[in-house]
C-alpha cells in the first residue's frame, strides 16, 4: 500500500517542487512571488492548448516528450522511498535507473536537434557534454553504497546504516550526498549550471532545448522536469537514509506505521531539497560554461573520496 502511495505522492506532488523553488527565490528577493500551485496552473493551461509544430521537425520531435516522460516515470517505479521498497526492485536496478534517466536525456537531445535550430543544437550539445562527466560521478557515488552493502538493488542498498557504527559511515554519506546534490543541480539544469530565467537563449541548456515545443508537448516536458527533480531529490533523500530515522532498526521493519513515517520523512526530505535548491538559486550566479566541468569533476572527486573512505 505504501508503495503505491509513494508513487501516487510523487506523481501528484512533483510539480509542487517547482512551485517551492520559485517561491523561495521570490521571498529571498523580497517579492511575494507566484502561488505555490503555479506549476499546476501552468500544466493545466498547457495541456488545454493546441500545438504548433515546426515544419522542419519529424516524428522524432513528436516522440521526444513521450520518451522523456516515459523514461522518468519508469525510473520513478525503481526508486525506493526510505523504508518503502520500490515498485519494481531487483539486483542491478540502480543501473537501469541511471540508464532510464539516460533514455530521457537521449530523447530530449534528439528532439531538440530535430528542430534544426542552432540554439537548440547548442543546448543539446551542452547537455551531452555535461552528461559525459555527470554519469561517471553518479555511478561512482552509487557504487559506494553497492560496495558497502554488497547489494545491487536500490531498495536494499541504502538501509544498512544500522549495522555499521554510525560514526564510520557519516563522513562517507556526507561526501556522497554533497556529490549527489551537485549532480542534482546539473541534471535539473538549475543555477549554478543553467539559469532558466535569462532572456538569452544562448546561455541556457534545458530551457533552450524546449524552445520549439508547445501545448501538451510542452506540458509533458514541464511535468517531466518536475518529475526529474523529484526522482533525483528522492535519490538524495535515500542516500541520507532519512527513512531510517523513523522506526527502530531491525525490529518492526515491515510494520506499516514505520513505513508510513519513513515515507513522510522521505517526502519531507524531498521538499527540503527543493527549498535548498531555491536558496542556492537565490545566493549564487550562474557559472561560466567552461567552469562547469570543474564542478562536475569535483562531484566525481567527492564520490571517489567516499569510496576510498569505505575501502580504507
Amino acid at each position, binding site marked *: 500500500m505504501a508503495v503505491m502511495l509513494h508513487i501516487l505522492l510523487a506523481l501528484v506532488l512533483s510539480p509542487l517542487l517547482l512551485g517551492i523553488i520559485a517561491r523561495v527565490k521570490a521571498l529571498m528577493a523580497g517579492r511575494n512571488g507566484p502561488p505555490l500551485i503555479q506549476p499546476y496552473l501552468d500544466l493545466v493551461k498547457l495541456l488545454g492548448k493546441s500545438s504548433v509544430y515546426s515544419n522542419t521537425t519529424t516524428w522524432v520531435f513528436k516522440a521526444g516528450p513521450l520518451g522523456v516522460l516515459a523514461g522518468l516515470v519508469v525510473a520513478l517505479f525503481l526508486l525506493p522511498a526510505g523504508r518503502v521498497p520500490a515498485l519494481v526492485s531487483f539486483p542491478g536496478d540502480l543501473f537501469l535507473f541511471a540508464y*532510464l534517466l539516460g533514455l530521457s536525456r537521449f530523447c530530449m537531445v534528439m528532439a531538440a536537434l530535430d528542430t534544426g*535550430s*542552432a540554439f537548440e543544437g547548442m543546448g543539446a550539445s551542452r547537455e551531452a557534454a555535461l552528461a559525459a562527466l555527470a554519469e561517471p560521478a553518479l555511478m561512482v557515488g552509487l557504487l559506494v553504497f553497492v560496495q558497502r552493502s554488497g547489494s545491487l538493488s536500490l531498495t536494499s542498498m541504502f538501509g544498512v546504516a544500522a549495522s555499521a557504527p554510525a560514526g564510520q559511515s557519516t563522513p562517507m554519506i556526507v561526501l556522497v550526498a554533497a556529490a549527489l546534490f551537485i549532480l542534482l543541480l546539473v541534471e535539473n539544469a538549475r543555477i549554478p549550471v543553467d539559469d532558466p530565467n535569462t532572456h538569452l537563449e544562448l546561455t541556457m541548456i534545458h530551457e533552450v532545448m524546449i524552445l520549439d515545443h508547445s501545448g501538451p508537448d510542452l506540458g509533458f516536458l514541464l511535468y517531466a522536469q518536475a518529475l526529474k527533480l523529484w526522482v533525483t531529490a528522492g535519490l538524495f533523500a535515500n542516500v541520507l537514509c532519512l527513512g531510517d530515522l523513523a522506526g527502530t532498526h531491525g525490529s518492526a521493519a515491515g510494520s506499516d506505521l514505520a513505513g508510513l513515517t519513513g515515507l513522510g520523512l522521505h517526502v519531507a526530505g524531498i521538499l527540503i531539497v527543493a527549498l535548498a535548491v531555491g536558496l542556492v538559486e537565490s545566493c549564487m550566479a550562474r557559472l561560466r560554461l567552461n567552469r562547469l566541468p570543474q564542478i562536475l569533476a569535483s562531484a566525481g572527486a567527492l564520490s571517489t573520496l567516499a569510496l576510498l573512505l569505505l575501502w580504507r
Partner: protein
Amino acid sequence: MALILAALAVYLSGAGLAWVLGRGRAASIAGSASAVVGGILGVIGLGLALSRLMDGHPIPDLALAWSLPGLHVVLGLDGLSAVFLLPVFVLGGLCALSGHAALAHDPDKPHLGAHWSFYNLTLAGLTLTLMARDGLLFLIAWEIMSLAPFFLIVTHDKEERVRTAGWAYLIASHLGAVILALVFILLGREAGSLSFAAFASLHGLSPVLAGTIFLLGLTGFGAKAGFAPLHVWLPEAHPAAPSHVSAFMSGVLIKIGVYGVMRLLTFLGQPPEWWSLACIGLGLFTGVWGILAALGQRDIKRLLAYSSVENVGLILLGLGLGLMGTAQRLPGLALLGYGGALLHMLNHGLIKSLLFLSAGAVLHSTGTLDQSRLGGLAGRMPLTGAAFFLGALAICGLPPLNGFCGELLMYMAAAANTAGDGFSHDVSVLCSVAGLAFIGALCLAAFGRGLGAAFLGEPRSEAALKAHDPGHLECFVLLVLLGLCLTASLAAPSLFSILLPAVTLLMGKGGAAAERLAPTATMPLAYTALAACLVFLAAVVLFKLRERLLFNRPIRGSRTWGCGYTGPTARMQYSGGSFVQPLADQTRTVTGHRTVIHAPLGLFPLSARVEERSPERGVVWLFRPLFQGLETLCNGLKFLQHGKAHLYILYILVALVLALAWKGQ
C-alpha cells in the same frame, strides 16, 4: 551438426557457382541465395545443437580421414562455437540479402561473381574457424577467413582510399596471423600435438610460458578484433567496404578475435589475476579510445567503425571481469562477466549491422556519408531514419532496447566484486564502473552527432533533399534487424540461457556452478524486459493522451523559432562538429582533435572556412614511426640486393655450407 556441415557445403558451392556465373546478375542471385540458404540451414542446425548442449549433452567431434601429413580435419561444436556461429548464420544471410539489392544498382558495376564468391568463402572460412578443433586446420581456416574479406573490402578498387584501406587490413590481419602461428607452435610444442583436445588437457604450463602465450594470443587475436592500438585498420576498412560488407565485418568478423581469445583461455587453465587486470585495462582503454575518436568523425561509417572499436573494448572488459571471477574463484562474478561479454557480442552484432545497413541506404540514396552534407533524412527516408534512431538508442546501451542487456550484466559484475581487497581490486572496481558510465555517456554524444547531423534538422545539400528510402528488400532487412533487436531485448533471459553452455565452458572448473547461478543473471534481465515493456506502455499511454488532448484542436505548422532572426538557412544549423565541440575540446590532448578556423578577413571577406581534423593517434604515434623505422632498417640492407647474379649464387653456396655445418654439429 549435419545441418551445419550442410550449411558449410552450401557456402562452398555458392562460392564456386558465383565464380562460374561471371560478373552479372545471375551470379549475384546465386551467391546471395547460397548465403541465405546456408544461413537458414545453419540456424536450424544450431537450434538443434544448442538444445542438446543446454541439456548437458556434449556433441562428439567429427574427424575426417585426410591424407595430408600433419593436418587433421577435426570439427567440433560446443557452446562457445555455437554462440559465435549464431551471428555468422543470421547476419551472414541478412547482409547478403541487403547486399544483393544494393550492389544491383551500384554505379561502379563491380564484378558480382567475384564478390559473392568471396562473400561465401568468408562465411565458409568463419564457420570452419569456429568449428576447427586442430591447430593447423584453425590457422588455415583463419587465413581463408582473413584473406577473403580483403577482396570484399576492395570491391570499389578504383578509388585510392579503398585500396589503401584494403592494404591496411591485409597487413593488420597478417601480422596477427603470424603471431597466432607462434601461439600454436608454442602450444603444440608443449602438448606434443596440434589438436585442441591435447591443448585442453595441458597441465602445469609454467606461469611464464602461459603468460607469454596469453599475451601473444591477445595481440594476435586483438589485431582481428581491433583492441587498441591494433584497431587502426577498422576505421579505414569499414568506410571503404560496401555497406553490407561493413555490417557483416563489424557484426561478425571482428568478434572472431574475441572468440580466439576465449578459446585460447580454455587451454591455459586457471588464469592468474594479472590476466584479468590486463583484459580489464585493455578493454577500458579500447573502449574510451574508440568512443573518443568516434566523437570527431564526419563520415558516418567511420563513426560507426570507431563505435565498433569501443564495443569490442566493452566485450573485452566483460571478459576481463569474468577472468577476475575465475582467478579469484568467484563463480558469480565469472558468470556475470562472461555472460555480459557474450550477450553484448550478440547484441552488438545485431545493432551494428542495423546501423551500417542504414548508413548504406543513406550512401546509396544521397551519394555521401559526410554529415555536413546531410541532414533532415529522418523525414525523407522514414524507415532508414527510424532504423538509425533506434539503432543509436540501442548502441548507447539505453533501455528499452537490447544494447542495455549486456551492459547491465557487465555493470553488475564490475560493481558486485566485493570479495577481494587490495589495490588491484579497488582500482579495477572503480575504473570499470566509472569507465562504463563514461563510455556510455560519450556514446550518447557521438551518436547524437551522427544521428543529429545526418538525420535531423534541415537538409544541407541538394542530395539530402532528394533522399528516399531504399528498395523493398533492403527495407525488409532493416525491419527484420529491428525486430531482432527488440526481441533480443524482451527475450533477453532466453538469449542468456543460450549462452549458458559457453559460459560454463569459460568458467572452467567453476563451470558446475553456472547452472545454479544462472538466475542471478536471468532475473535482472527479466526485470529489464519488464521495465522495457513499461517504457513502451507509458509511451503509448502518453501518445494516446496527447492525441486525446489535441483532438479537434487546430494543429499548426510553422518555422523553427530562430530567436527573432528571420532568414535562417540550412547551413546555419548546429553542425555535427559544433555539437561535439565541448567534449572534443576537452579531450583533444589525447585524441588530437583540432578545429582549424579560417576566419573571414577584411571589410569585404571573400571566404571563411572551418576545418575539423581528427587524426588517428594510433597511427601517428605508434604505427607510422614503427613502420618507418622498419623501412629504414630494410633500406639499410639494400646493399645485399645489388642484382649481380654471380654474387647471388655465392649467397646460395654460403647458405648451403652454413646449413651443412649446422647439420654436422
